[in-house]
């Protein structure tokens, strides 16, 4: 695309004005992230001052009213729910992208892709509600109490599936056609081509998809809050209720004051750090990307 930014022949003063006001607007847009980080830090600072970061991991329990701020059960909750859902959603999502590209007849591929897009557009509160009235009672029949890590993993899995499926779909589309034709000309059967040629060629896109879905799984709040039972504990089985970092913020923010409120901002800060780390690694991967 031709950029006219170095057009030194421009004689119009309105252009100067426009350019500078646009720069001002873009600065606002770009500064929002900084503003978020600054406000999280400012709000978290009091508790970091008189409690210290270490005690968020070494305190005996999470009882903010008594000055005990152990975040580790919630961190484990987030980690387990995230890992479980990513482990299930990744193969399913990649397979459904493979279905779209290499297995489905065109009549099915288009509506199937639309369906995934629709799935991506359904709000998290609706997923949570469905999980609460449909999934949780089903799980309770197998093993009470019902609201559990398992329910959280399943709901998260359905929610992040469209993310990985759409990303995988896009990255499979960038694999050059001649690779596939070449492999087919060598007489390789379909799955062998996909496994041996398509997946390696689309690797970086698939990896970016996994990172994106991980970010989504970590950040999800409402659905997890509705189906996980929200007991502060490190789960010992998938049927135990858990509370995630995000759910903890949503549950306690309403009445938290003083150090308690600040402690919730600390968990927000932890979330933000994870997300920034994921974004950086996603960019690092896509820089090494081979095709577009």
């Amino acid at each position, binding site marked *: 695309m*031709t*950029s*006219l*930014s*170095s*057009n030194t022949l*421009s004689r*119009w003063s309105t252009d100067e004005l426009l*350019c500078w006001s*646009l*720069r001002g607007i*873009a600065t606002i*847009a*770009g500064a*929002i*992230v900084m503003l*978020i980080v600054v406000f*999280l830090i400012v*709000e978290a600072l009091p508790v970091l001052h008189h409690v210290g970061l270490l005690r968020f991991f070494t305190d005996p329990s999470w009882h903010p009213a008594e000055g005990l701020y152990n975040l580790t059960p919630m961190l484990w909750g987030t980690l387990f729910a995230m890992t479980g859902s990513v482990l299930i959603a990744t193969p*399913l999502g990649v*397979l459904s992208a493979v*279905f779209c590209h290499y297995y489905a007849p065109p009549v099915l591929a288009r509506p*199937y892709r639309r369906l*995934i*897009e*629709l*799935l991506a*557009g*359904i*709000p*998290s*509160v*609706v*997923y*949570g*509600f*469905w999980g609460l*009235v*449909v999934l949780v009672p089903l799980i309770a029949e197998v093993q009470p109490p019902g609201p559990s890590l398992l329910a959280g993993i399943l709901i998260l899995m359905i929610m992040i599936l469209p993310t990985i499926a759409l990303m995988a779909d896009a990255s499979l589309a960038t694999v050059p056609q001649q690779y596939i034709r070449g492999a087919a000309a*060598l*007489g390789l059967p*379909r*799955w*062998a081509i996909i496994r041996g040629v398509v997946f390696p060629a689309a690797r970086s896109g698939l990896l970016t998809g996994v990172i994106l879905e991980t*970010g989504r799984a970590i*950040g999800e*709040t*409402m659905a997890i*809050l509705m189906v996980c039972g929200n007991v502060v504990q490190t789960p010992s089985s998938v049927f135990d209720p858990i509370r995630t970092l*995000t759910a903890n*913020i949503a549950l306690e*923010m*309403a009445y938290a004051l003083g150090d308690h409120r600040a402690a919730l*901002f600390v968990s*927000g800060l932890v*979330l*933000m750090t994870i*997300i*920034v780390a994921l974004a950086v690694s996603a*960019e690092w991967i896509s820089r090494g990307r081979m095709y577009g």
Partner: protein
Amino acid sequence: MAETLSRPQDHREWFAFVLVWGAAALVTAVFCWLLGDIIWHGLSHVSWTFLTTSPENAGRRGGIGPILVSTSLILGVCLAVSLPIGIGTAVLLAEFTSDQSLFGRMTRRSLDVLAGVPSIVFGLFGNAFFCKALGLGFSILSGGLTLACMVLPILIRSTEEGFRAVPASYRLSAAALGLSRSTTLVHLLLPAAVPGLLVGLVLGIGRAIAETAALIFTSGYVDRMPQSLLDSGRALSIHIFDLSMNVAGGDANAYASALVLVVLLLAINGAASWLATYGLHRKIMTV
């Protein structure tokens, strides 16, 4: 690869075939189950009265009239703020800076991070910044402003793509005719980039009305009809959350509200993909 015709390979092919079709069938089944459940239970409760009356008895009976009003007010505030900032930034990124410039790279990177920030963190930020620091309190204004920060990356991304889809010859011809770049922008590029802008707008609206976590601590829970933008107002998604979690016996109305929300979102998504397919590829236009 000499044994392509051997038995194990055939087995593997067959297994992969079953796996791929199975995955697709599973995803379709879950989708139908979810949507079917909500339509089945929700449809009998949705009526004109439900859409226009106030909730009674904490939402167990009555309708969602004031909630729809609050939702649209929040959305209005969100768009009124995010559209000018979003379009301005997109114009700058697509037309006035090169991809390599430091400013462009920094802005783009910070928007990428912003796109990944969890909604609950937006809620924390909105509560600390708009509600407390700016003193707006729990209000529709705070909620809308928080959502505006949230939809900006989507809006900017697709508007920028809209601008990039405009052929370079337009800009070159305009420059050759001696038009100023502002004139080129307003009369030539902006109309040509409208489809991309619309896609971004529709996607942004979708994200905004689906949002719950960012609104709980910014726009609040109050289910009265809002009197002004500084009143607290309950969004539709929060209504569903509240009915299903905090109100025993609210499931019927929660189903109906969920159906309304899903139908709204499906319509919005349909519009977005229609625009993306037919709008973006249609070459323009009369100035």
